[in-house]
């Protein structure tokens, strides 16, 4: 039993090291003075806040559209349900630069969808909307799947009881289903936001400028080398760690019982 635990812990530990070592190296490799000056660099600050903001818009948009879809996938047995689930998972499987190309072809200025949006003042190339769209496209499976799992974990009989007690389908959704699955939804939203922040391939196809943090890191690496890309990376990693640890902590909090 003891040897079993040691082997399992050792194997898991190796994987954790694979993740932690590069991140830690990025953080400790930057001189504190360079970190400070980078953190005060207006271009860096603008880029990081743009990234956070665009990923937040993407997440909020997908919460509005993805949570109902997740509920339908969890509760309804409809023809083509598996196909819909497959479509939801598709963005995870395709290369993100290819996803960017596909988005550019539909939402760019050459296709009628892009033209239609342009008529109401929304363009997706070189704009925050384009960044959010690219982020949403590649990261929505994280939110939809987590929310679906959350709804699946809610006993359908609770919904049945709520209905017999006088709740309409909407009241049942908001007072029972949503309240009981909010942790999964928050967890999925956190993952989606995180994935959105990290997105490079799809975003770069739609919007190089304004520059999100991953593109800024890439640009600095290309133009000035690793030394100048590292502090920006370190700041982004630290910021993400703080935000996501907080959100994870919130989702993991037990209700006061």
């Amino acid at each position: 039993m003891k040897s079993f635990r040691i082997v399992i812990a050792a194997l898991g530990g190796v994987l954790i090291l694979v993740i932690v070592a590069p991140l830690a190296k990025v953080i400790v490799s930057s001189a504190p003075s360079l970190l400070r000056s980078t953190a005060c660099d207006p271009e860096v600050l603008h880029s990081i806040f743009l990234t956070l903001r665009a990923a937040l818009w993407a997440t909020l948009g997908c919460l509005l559209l993805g949570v109902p879809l997740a509920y339908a996938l969890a509760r309804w047995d409809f023809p083509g349900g598996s196909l819909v689930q497959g479509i939801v998972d598709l963005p995870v499987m395709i290369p993100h630069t290819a996803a960017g190309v596909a988005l550019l072809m539909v939402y760019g200025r050459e296709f009628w969808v892009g033209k239609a949006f342009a008529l109401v003042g929304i363009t997706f190339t070189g704009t925050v909307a384009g960044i959010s769209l690219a982020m949403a496209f590649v990261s929505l499976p994280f939110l939809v799947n987590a929310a679906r799992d959350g709804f699946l974990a809610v006993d359908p009989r609770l919904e049945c009881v709520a209905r017999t007690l006088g709740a309409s389908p909407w009241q049942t959704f908001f007072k029972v289903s949503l309240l009981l699955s909010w942790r999964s939804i928050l967890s999925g939203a956190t993952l989606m936001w995180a994935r959105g922040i990290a997105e490079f391939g799809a975003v770069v196809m739609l919007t190089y400028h304004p520059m999100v943090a991953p593109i800024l890191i890439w640009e600095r690496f290309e133009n000035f080398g690793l030394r100048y890309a590292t502090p920006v990376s370190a700041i982004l990693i630290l910021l993400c760690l703080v935000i996501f640890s907080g959100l994870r902590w919130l989702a993991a909090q037990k209700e006061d019982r």
Partner: protein
Amino acid sequence: MLRLEDICLNLGHFQLRDIRLHVEAGTYLALLGSTGTGKTVLLETIAGMHTPRSGRIYIRGQDATRLAPEKRRLGIVYQDSALFPHLTVFSNIAFGLRLKGCPGGEIKKAVEDMAAFLEIEPLLKRRPNRLSGGERQRVALARALVIKPYVLLLDEPLSALDRALRRRVQNELKRIHEELGVTIIHITHDVAEAFLLSDRLAVMKGGRILQEGAPDEVCNRPASRSVAELTGIENLIEARVENGRLATSMGYADFWPLAAEAGDLPARVYLTLPGWSIELFPAGKPKEYIWRGTLTVRDVRPGNGTGIVELTLGHEGGELLRTHLSRREAQALSASLNRGTSVPVGLLAQGAHWVPHETPR
């Protein structure tokens, strides 16, 4: 109060077929059937969670077939209580009243009254995960009853409870029925529970209601072999009708007790005999029995802790009959009941009934 007319429904593997049921106001109906027979689907169809393919549901004379569940005013209690885990006991019970928009004071009084009735006042501030199985069921009952439902639907509410708790909640259900006069439909696969609580009994199998009536009537006059088996009749004896008598492997049984039904008697039948209709050392008049003879004790089980002695008696023709005695009755018999002992036995006409040999469904 509730009338189901020819309800048919397909739901995954489950089917309801031609369900007809009439439940008068104030009735306690037990719906008896084995697992997977469609009892819960039927209950949820009554509650409005599934729309039947055909047939009508009437609640208090109104056609409720396509009425939304929230407009039917039916209470439902599931086996595992299905309490809202994110709400306190108070909020669970108040859930339906809050949806109705009742004033706060009215809700508080109604919840406290119901909690007092079910003796769960000390639990009102707790969360469901801090309750025992019996407490959870009483909270679920309070939640369903506080909205004053037309019909209370109980889906095996006692199955998950241990024996002592089950007895306590059974008493609670009897009291609820007697004191509140609420109409109850109670799903169970436990025959004893069905007999203890209900004043009407419906037996269900394969998505159909096979028989419905007073519990005694259904048990003593089963309409088919399936009903006899589901209601726990201990003995089914294969028989042929020959010259006005029933020929069995134990010899001829007198036909006269069944004569009233003889007009429809098919050539081959099963004689149904509940355990109580097997009398050891028969002392009554000959006409009280359809068969008398000697059987050999094949097995004796003392029924540890129950005070009931279970007996298996064998005939030389191969037939085995099962009956039970209280320990006191067993001790009072003139012969000791050991394996291999021969005992005189009479089959009481009062308990004898027949069902067709081939049950069509």
